[in-house]
Every structure is written in structure tokens, then in C-alpha cells.
């Protein structure tokens, strides 16, 4: 049955309850977007100037070579990306499962299990993996992932459980299936919290990937380690600066991704 609105309704009711203007709180000012990259570029420039003006000895020249650093950076990013990806494919599905009503009895057990991963220091995990399994790239990726699964898992669960019950009830009440409620309502609404967890994981991973150098996984950690072992503190310092710049850059990019992935209307 179709109905036409009455003019009367418009006349008497149209005007009240003026809606608030769309405040785009989430979009940062251009200045805030530019601050971090400019700062990082400046640090890199200063480091470059320092290295290029320095009279390098043979060990330093080998380590502080542009191609060498680029290769280590690539390894570092691969460690970070793969471990974070692993976290993503483990933590998010498990987080979803643990928040379903049928999983309620096992949730505390599961959380305790993932807690162990985070409680053991990464360097300890790395050594255990290296001794029990192997050294190299893959054990490092897995150790990193074991360490950062918990924050993402926890954020996934928090993100899903904080969705307003009335929103879920109205969705179910209109005849959306449980799966549709999950994919179209719960997950989109949980994205900001899940993303915050992922960003934490990414930042931790990019930092701790440095330790991979101890068990032969490469990465920028090699600069630091080789600086120590060959008694060249300059190499260690440059390595440290590069790791810090990379970590801040990754965090900065993840922050931008967070802004863009956050659903409109929140």
C-alpha cells in the first residue's frame, strides 16, 4: 500500500530537531599528515650526510653501502609483513570464533593460551625456535607472530563485543542471518578497534624483527649486530637510526590506513 505524505505533517513537523553538521573529526589537518614524513626525511638526510662525510674504514664501507642497506631493509620489511599477515589470518578468525555465543565456555582457555605467546620475551621465543627447529627467516616470522597475535586477537574480540546489542538485535529482528550480521554489521563496526590492534602488532613486529639478525634472518638488525661484533659502534648507531625511522614510517602509514578504513558515520 502506498501512502502520500501530508503537507500538514511537513508543515508541523518538518522543522524541529536540526541535525548536527557533519564534523569531519577523523580527517587530520594537512600539517599533521606532513609532520612525520618531513621529520623522518630530515633524519635520513642528516644520517646520509654524516655517513658520506665520514672517512669509512673497510668494515664500515661494506656495511654502510647503499645496496647492502637496501637489501637489509627489504628483508626487514618482509619479516614484518609476513609475520603481521600471519597474525592477521590467525587472530581475526579466532577472535571472531571466540566471540560467537557457542564458544563462550572455551574463550578464557583460549585467551590464556595466547597470553603465553605474549608473556615469553621475543628473544626467548626466537632462541627456543632456533634451538628446537632451525635458524633463519621462517622461525623468526613465526616467533614474531606468536608474540603479536594476542593484541590483535584481543582487539578483534573487544571490537566485536562492543558493537551495540540493540544494533545486532534490530539486524536480527529484520531477518538478517547470523552470517550477514557478522559480515555486514559487526565486522565493519569493529574495524576501528581491530585496526588499532593490527597497527600495534605491525609496530611491535617492525621493531622486534631487528632481533631476527641474531638467528640469521637478516634485516636491519644485521647492521646493529655486526656493529657490535666487529666493535664498530658507528654501524650500530646508523642501524639503530634506520630501524627507528622504518618503525615510525610503518606506524605512520598504518595510522593513515586506519583513517581510511574506518567506516563513515562512526
Amino acid at each position, binding site marked *: *500500500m*502506498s*501512502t*502520500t*505524505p*501530508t*503537507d*500538514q*505533517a*511537513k*508543515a*508541523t*513537523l*518538518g522543522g*524541529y*530537531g*536540526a*541535525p*548536527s*553538521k*557533519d564534523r569531519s573529526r577523523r580527517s587530520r589537518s594537512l600539517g599533521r599528515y606532513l609532520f612525520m614524513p618531513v621529520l623522518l626525511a630530515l633524519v635520513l638526510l642528516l644520517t646520509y650526510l654524516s655517513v658520506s662525510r665520514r672517512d669509512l674504514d673497510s668494515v664500515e664501507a661494506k656495511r654502510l653501502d647503499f645496496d647492502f642497506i637496501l637489501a637489509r631493509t627489504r628483508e626487514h620489511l618482509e619479516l614484518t609483513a609476513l609475520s603481521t599477515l600471519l597474525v592477521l589470518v590467525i587472530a581475526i578468525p579466532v577472535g571472531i570464533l571466540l566471540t560467537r555465543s557457542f564458544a563462550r565456555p572455551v574463550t578464557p582457555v583460549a585467551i590464556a593460551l595466547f597470553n603465553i605467546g605474549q608473556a615469553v620475551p621475543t628473544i626467548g621465543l626466537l632462541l627456543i625456535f632456533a634451538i628446537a627447529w632451525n635458524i633463519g627467516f621462517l622461525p623468526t616470522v613465526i616467533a614474531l607472530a606468536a608474540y603479536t597475535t594476542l593484541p590483535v586477537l584481543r582487539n578483534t574480540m573487544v571490537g566485536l563485543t562492543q558493537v*551495540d546489542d*540493540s*544494533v*545486532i*538485535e*534490530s*539486524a*536480527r*529482528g*529484520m*531477518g*538478517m*542471518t547470523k552470517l*550477514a550480521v557478522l559480515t555486514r*554489521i559487526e565486522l*565493519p*563496526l569493529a574495524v576501528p578497534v581491530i585496526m588499532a590492534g593490527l597497527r600495534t602488532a605491525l609496530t611491535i613486529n617492525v621493531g622486534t624483527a631487528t632481533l631476527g639478525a641474531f638467528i640469521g634472518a637478516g634485516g636491519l638488525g644485521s647492521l646493529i649486530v655486526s656493529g657490535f661484533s666487529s666493535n664498530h659502534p658507528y654501524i650500530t648507531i646508523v642501524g639503530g637510526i634506520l630501524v627507528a625511522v622504518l618503525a615510525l614510517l610503518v606506524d605512520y602509514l598504518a595510522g593513515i590506513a586506519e583513517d581510511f578504513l574506518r*567506516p*563513515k*558515520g*562512526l
Partner: protein
Amino acid sequence: MTDPQQGHETGSASDAGKIEIRLENLAKRFPGVSEPAVDDLTMEIPKGEIVILVGPSGCGKTTTMKMINRIIEPTSGRIVLDGEDVTKVNPDQLRRRIGYVIQQIGLFPHQTIADNIATVPRLLGWSKERTSERVDELLEMVSMDPGRYRKRYPKELSGGQRQRVGVARAMSADPDVMLMDEPFGAIDPITRDRLQNEFLRLQEQIKKTIIFVTHDIDEAIKMGDRIAILREQSHIAQFDTPERILVNPADDFVADFIGRGASLKRLSLSRVRDVELHDWPTTQEGASPEEIRRLLDGSDKSAVLVLDEQRRPLRWVNAEHLSRSGNGRGLDDVGLPAEAVVQPNATLSDTLNEMITARYSTAIVVDSSNAYQGIVDIDTINETVRSMRRAERGRLRGDDAADTDFDDEDD
């Protein structure tokens, strides 16, 4: 549908007495609770009526309502919807046939108003064009400009607007049945009153079968075609029209629940269009002071109501205003604004409320285009209350020798 009144009458004639929903021995026991939340409820809900479930907190009214769309699965009993037993059908499919409005509304915050309203049409696989047309139609139905609101997000709306969107969303696939759980409960009293009136006006056109849960007896009396007053475990204390419940409460529980002031509450049952309007001297905007003075002299009223060209009430002008307007001031600036304006569908209770604070103890009645129709004064209301009471007494005497004492008869 040029004449909603006519649509209303033909609709009710063909549907008269038809049962839309039948609940048979419905019961709900929650695990770990010894007492059932709902115990053996049987009731019939007629097509096209608003049936109110009202009762104290914890009486099981919300549980009862939620069993109809099986948000809560009944432990035993049957739900029959339009002749079909839906107790065991796919609940998701069932819910797409039933509109659902809850107090917190539950709009999807990450979706636009248009997307929110389009939820059920999309579940039903409607085409984009049909869905989009329906969204516009519904927004207009709840008096929101589609061009302005389609693309907005729920957080950009006021509470009243969100509630309208909630109602529009529940009606999106034009369900025959709507379930409303305290739909106006979380809204400020002024907006609530408007939304209630607006909803009643809408219902006159759409004639849905509505189950409406509230704990507020005044809302029940205002909104309901029938009221089921429930006591604990959803036992029906009385299921009847508001008039009969007010006149003849089944027992002390019902009488207590209605509370004091049944006469005043009865005023919510009559509307301005049901009473005879009185005349008041009026004049057009731009009339000369002499004209107004002549009108005043020829009337027993102390003021004249000035109308604009579309006959919309503007101001009250009395003799004193006229004398002041003499000193070079035009007639347009003098007088008092015409307040206490009501439409024919306003309840006498609302009208009385307006009237008490208004000048000359009158409410101005306007039609749907806000053109002046007449006035209602305190005598009209008085007379209405008296005649209602007479009619009820007559009916009761005819019915049975009920020993109801009319404790409100002499107030």
C-alpha cells in the same frame, strides 16, 4: 488514495473481525529460572489494529512480543500468523515479514539513512530502482525530506529523527504486522507526543496490525485500539478497548494499574474532530480598526481572531489593542500571537493542556492546511466528559448490574 478517511473505512469493513495473529498456549521458560517468564498465554490480535501489551516491569510483555518474531524462541505453544503456523518456519524468513522497532532503535551507525531503510528490501532481493523509490517514499511518509536525509548517517540525526527512520525502516517491505517495543520510550516528552500523533495519523492510512509494548498506561490509552493489561508471567488481567478498561476495570490490579484520574485519561480517547466546534469572531489581516471594533461590539467575546489570506490564525486583537494602535502604529503589530492551535486529530487531553495556558481559555482548531475551523473551549470539554460518563453509565446498566462505584463521578 485521495481521501484517507474513506480508505480507512473500506479497509476496516473488509478486515473487520479478521484475526491476524493468534497466540496459542504460548510459554517461555528461561534456563535456570524456576518460574516461567510467560505462562500459557492465549490471545488473538485482530487485523489492522494497534494492540498494546502493557504491564509492570518484568511481567513478560517484551518476552511475549519477541516470541512473535521468534527473537526469543517459545518453549511451547503456537504462533499463528494470518492463518499460517509460523512456530517452526525459518525465523529469518519470518522476520522479513514482520516490522520490528525497538526502544534503542538500533540504526546501523556505519550506514546511511537510505541504506538503513533499504535493509529488508535488499534481503528480499528487490531491484535497486524499486528499493530506492521505496526509501524516498518512506522518508516522505515520516516527514523527512529524502533529498536532505538519504545520505546522512544516524549520528547526524536528532533522537526524534532517528526514531522516524527506525519506523520507516521497519515498514520498508510493507509488512502486515509490526512489533514495536517501547518505540517512543527514549524520546523527550514533547517529541514523543508529536511522534505518537504522527504515528496514529499514519496508521489511519496504512492500517497495519501492530503489537505495541509499553509500561506507560497513558501511552497505551492514547495509542491502543485494544489494550492487554498483563500481570506477571504475561497472564492477561484484562484485554479490551481502552474505553471499556477505563470504565470497567476487571479487577483491583487493573484499577490500580490505570491509577487515579480515569476521567482525565478518558479525554485521551476523544479527539477534536469528535466534538462540536464553536464560532469565534474572526477577521482578515488588514481589516480596519473600525471593522474590528464593530465585530467586538456585536459579539460577547472580548477579542477578535485575525486570520491571514490562507485563513491561518495570526493574532488575537482586543479593544485595548485597538486603542493603542491608534497612535500611528499599524494593526499588524498589535495583538497577541495566536497560540494553542490544534488539529482535528489532537486528543481532548492535549487540547485541554494547550487551553489551560492559552488566552481566553480556548484552543484554536485548524485543518490540515492550518486554516481556521473554529474553537474549542472549556465548556465543550466539560460537556464531552459529562456525556461520556452518561453513555458509560447507560451501557453498564444495560450490560449487567456491576457494582462499580464511580469514585470519579463527582470530581
